[in-house]
């Protein structure tokens, strides 16, 4: 009985193993095949573009995330323009032309804006330099002498510990 059970277990586990491999293969395959297809569909393009645009009537929300009527109308307009054959770049340029660069959630990587992209790394590098200097200074400092302990006190502690153990 036990043996048969083990065999069944064995078969079962092999089968699930095979099954999970098949599922994994299917998932990978679907990612490879479906993702590019999905990205080229208009709906996905609308979503991607809307995520880059700031909803004008919200506070720090993208057009993709906002449920407001204005964002809805903007998504419809994006869809309409894409379906009319405009490239996503042209649609984005249209919104920048009307609202200014303010409409872009991420500033363009040029001119003064570059500071925003460079500053975090400069800060990180600066922090690393400070850390390096401080650690070097600590290492150079002479090792503190071990605290002097009264030998009579030490003896007393040892005696008490010995008493506790017994």
């Amino acid at each position, binding site marked *: 009985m036990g043996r048969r059970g083990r065999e069944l277990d064995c078969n079962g586990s092999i089968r699930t193993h095979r099954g999970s491999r098949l599922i994994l293969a299917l998932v990978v395959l679907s990612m490879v095949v479906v993702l590019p297809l999905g990205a080229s569909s208009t709906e996905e393009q609308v979503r991607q573009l809307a995520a880059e645009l700031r909803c*004008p009537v919200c506070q720090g929300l993208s057009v993709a995330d906002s449920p407001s*009527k204005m964002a809805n*109308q903007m998504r*419809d307009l994006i869809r309409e323009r894409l379906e009319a054959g405009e490239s996503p770049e042209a649609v984005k340029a249209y919104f*920048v032309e009307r*609202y200014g660069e303010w409409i872009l959630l991420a500033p363009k990587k040029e001119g003064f804006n570059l500071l925003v992209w460079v500053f975090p790394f400069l800060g990180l590098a600066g922090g690393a330099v400070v850390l390096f200097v401080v650690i070097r200074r600590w290492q150079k400092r002479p090792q503190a002498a071990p605290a002097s302990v009264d030998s009579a006190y030490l003896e007393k502690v040892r005696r008490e510990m010995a008493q506790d153990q017994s």
Partner: protein
Amino acid sequence: MKKVLIPLSVVPILLLLAYGFWTDPRFVPSPLIEKPAPLFALSLFDGEPLSLDGLRGKVVVVNFWASWCFPACYEEAPVLEGAWRTYKDRDVVVVGVNVQDTEKAAREFMERFQFTFPNGPDPGGKISIDYGVYGIPETFVLDKEGRIAHKHVGAVTADVLSAQIEGLLRRAPVADDNRQEHERGA
């Protein structure tokens, strides 16, 4: 040295914060100033069509409003109607674009303030997006050549509106300058 440097390092941060708190996050500079106003066509509430193209040669005030925009739109409604009545015989047109509204509420609003200037809805918000509108109300003043001369965000006051209109009425039409240049060149 250290005692001075550490408090001093706070200064740039304070300056940045001061700058941030002094600027109005709701103020968005329009890139459309001094640019040709986007053209649009309205089917007015009274059934007539109106095309901005047909208003070339006139100073045009384009106002974006909604009945739900309280109190700003309610404050400026008498100002707009007043400007229309004062200037309509001097080549000035006030056009109301009703945004994200229901027809019933819009008509009630127009009746309440006894609007006599042309008003029409903006289905799909296309006109508002074309004008880079990010809040209601917004008012654009267009010169006689159809360029956006001024943008006002929030309830427009009689002072601002009449100063803008008077200024544009006084301004010599650019078309004449072009003709002079053409003649000079010929």
